[in-house]
C-alpha cells in the first residue's frame, strides 16, 4: 500500500493499541505508524515500538482462549475481538513423554500449532496483519507464500469480507493450493521459487495503492503475531520459560519473535528471568542460516532451495541474521537435516505422540534428534519444540514411506498369515 493511502485516511485513536511507532532494528531510525516496513535510512527492518501498560497474569487469564488474550502486547486496537477474524491461537502444549523417552530427553513439550483454524501458525500473524490492513483502510489483502500463509490469508480475508490475492510458487504441494483456492478466486501461481514470488510481491506493493501485503508492507504488524507462540508457551508452562526451545527457520521471523516474547514477559514481570537456549531448525536443501552458523559467517549467503520442506524453502531469509544473533546470545545452535531425515521426523512424531506434522515439523523433530545425538542440546533440560503445521498439507512427503502392512482377502485365514495376530499376543 502506498504512503498516499495512509496519509489520505486518518488513523483512528488506538488503531494499533499500545504501539507508539516504528523503529529500525539496525540503525534505530524512527518512523510513524503506517504501511512501512523498510527503514528509509538503511533499508533495515522496521519493528513496532511500544509503550506497554502494566499487564497482569490475571488480566491475561481472564481473556478469550485465543491470541487476543494478549492484545495489550500486540499492535491491535482494544476492540479487536469485535471485528471478524479467525480467532487463532491458544493451541495445546502437549507433554511428549513417548518422544522424550525415544530421544533420551528428561522433559519434552510439543507446542502444537497444527490445530489453528487453517492448520498452521500462520493464522496468528495473519490475524495481526488483518487488523493492520483494516486500520490502514486497505482494499486488498495479499501475500507471497510458500503455502501455509496463503491458506491463512485467503481464509481470514473471506471471513473479514476483504478481497484477497495470494501468490504462490507454481510447484507447491497440491493440498496447499486447494486449501487456498477454496477460500479465494484470486490465487496466482508464479513460475519460480518462493524468492521470485517474494520479489514480485515487493514490486507490486510499491506500485499498487490500497494493497496490504501481510509479509511485505504490513510486515512489522504481521510478524508481531508470532510473539503469541512465546506468550502461550510460558503461560501454559505455568508462567515460566522453558530451558530450551527448537524452532523451524524459514525467514527466521518466528524464532526472533518467540525470543522477543520471552524477553517482553521478563521485562513486564510476568515470568521470572532465567537463561534459555534457542535452537533453529532447517532442511539441508535450504539451509542458508545453518550454513552461516556452522561457518561462523557474519552474513547470510542466499541459496536456491531444493528440499521437500517447502514451507521452509526461503533461500534469502529476511531475519536470518537475527537468528544467528539470538542462537549465539542464548547458547543455542542452528542445525539442518536431510529430506530423508525430515520424513523420518514426521513419522517419529506421529508414531510416538499421535501428532501428524507437515515437513516443517518433521524438520524440527529431526533436528531435535540430531541436536541430542551430537551433544549440542542438553537432554536433562526441559525442552519445547514447535509444530508449525498439519501433515495433511504435505501428504506427498510421507505417502511412499507409510502404508498398509498387508493387503488381504476378508478371511481369518488370510489375516493369520500376515503374522499380525501375534502383535496382540506378544503384548498380552
Amino acid at each position, binding site marked *: 500500500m502506498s504512503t498516499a493511502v495512509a496519509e489520505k485516511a486518518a488513523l483512528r485513536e488506538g488503531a494499533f493499541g499500545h504501539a507508539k511507532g516504528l523503529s529500525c532494528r539496525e540503525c534505530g531510525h524512527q518512523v510513524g505508524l503506517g504501511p512501512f516496513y523498510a527503514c*528509509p535510512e*538503511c*533499508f533495515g527492518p522496521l519493528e513496532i515500538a511500544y509503550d506497554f501498560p502494566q499487564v497482569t497474569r490475571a488480566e491475561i487469564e481472564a481473556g478469550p482462549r485465543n491470541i487476543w488474550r494478549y492484545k495489550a502486547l500486540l499492535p491491535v486496537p482494544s476492540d479487536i475481538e469485535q471485528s471478524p477474524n479467525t480467532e487463532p491461537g491458544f493451541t495445546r502444549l502437549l507433554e511428549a513423554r513417548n518422544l522424550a523417552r525415544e530421544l533420551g530427553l528428561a522433559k519434552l513439550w510439543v507446542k502444537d500449532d497444527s490445530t489453528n483454524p487453517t492448520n498452521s501458525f500462520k493464522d496468528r500473524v495473519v490475524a495481526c496483519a488483518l487488523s493492520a490492513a483494516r486500520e490502514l483502510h486497505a482494499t486488498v489483502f495479499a501475500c507471497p507464500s510458500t503455502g501455509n500463509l496463503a491458506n491463512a490469508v485467503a481464509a481470514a480475508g473471506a471471513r473479514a469480507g476483504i478481497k484477497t490475492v495470494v501468490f504462490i510458487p507454481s510447484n507447491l504441494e497440491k493440498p496447499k493450493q486447494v486449501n487456498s483456492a477454496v477460500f479465494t478466486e484470486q490465487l496466482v501461481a508464479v513460475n519460480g521459487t518462493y524468492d521470485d514470488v517474494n520479489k514480485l*510481491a515487493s514490486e507490486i506493493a510499491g506500485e499498487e495503492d490500497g494493497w496490504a501485503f501481510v509479509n511485505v508492507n504490513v510486515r512489522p504488524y504481521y510478524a508481531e503475531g508470532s510473539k503469541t507462540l512465546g506468550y502461550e508457551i510460558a503461560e501454559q508452562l505455568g508462567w515460566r520459560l522453558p530451558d530450551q526451545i527448537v524452532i523451524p527457520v524459514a*525467514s527466521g*521471523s518466528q524464532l526472533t519473535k518467540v525470543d522477543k516474547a520471552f524477553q517482553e514477559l521478563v521485562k513486564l514481570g510476568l515470568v521470572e528471568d532465567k537463561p534459555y537456549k534457542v535452537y533453529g531448525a532447517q532442511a539441508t536443501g535450504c539451509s542458508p542460516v545453518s550454513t552461516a552458523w556452522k561457518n561462523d559467517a557474519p552474513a547470510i549467503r542466499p541459496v536456491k532451495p531444493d528440499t521437500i520442506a517447502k514451507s521452509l524453502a526461503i533461500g*534469502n531469509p529476511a531475519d536470518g541474521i537475527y537468528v544467528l544473533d539470538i542462537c549465539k546470545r542464548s547458547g543455542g545452535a542452528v542445525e539442518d537435516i536431510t529430506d530423508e531425515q525430515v520424513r523420518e521426523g514426521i513419522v517419529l512424531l506421529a508414531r510416538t505422540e499421535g501428532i501428524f506434522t507437515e515437513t516443517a515439523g518433521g524438520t524440527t523433530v529431526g533436528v531435535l534428534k540430531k541436536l541430542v545425538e551430537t551433544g549440542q542440546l542438553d537432554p536433562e533440560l526441559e525442552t519445547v519444540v514447535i509444530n508449525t503445521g498439519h501433515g495433511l498439507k504435505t501428504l506427498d512427503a510421507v505417502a511412499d514411506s507409510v502404508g498398509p502392512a498387508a493387503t488381504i482377502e476378508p478371511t481369518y485365514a488370510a489375516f493369520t498369515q500376515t503374522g499380525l495376530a501375534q502383535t496382540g499376543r506378544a503384548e498380552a
Partner: protein
Amino acid sequence: MTVSVRVPTILRTYTSGESEVSAAGTTLAEVLDDLDASYSGIKGRILDDNGELRRFVNVYVGNDDVRFLDNLETPTPDGTQISVIPAVAGG
C-alpha cells in the same frame, strides 16, 4: 548501454517520485555511478560505507539476484531491467 532501473518507494524522494528511471553503464557498479550523477546521494543509500551492497537491499539484474551473479560487477546489457528492492520482506 541504457538500462531501466526500478526504484523502491523509500528512494523515490531522490527521483522526484519516479518509480522507474533510465541509467547507463556496462556493469551494475557503473549504472549506480550514473544513477548517482543524475540523482545525487542515491548510491549511498544502496551501498554501505565500504562500497558493498547494503545487507538489507536486494538488487536484481533481469530476474536474478546479483548476489547469485557477480554482485556489483554483474554485466548490464543494453535494455536490461534492474530492480532495487528492500530485502526485509517475506516469511
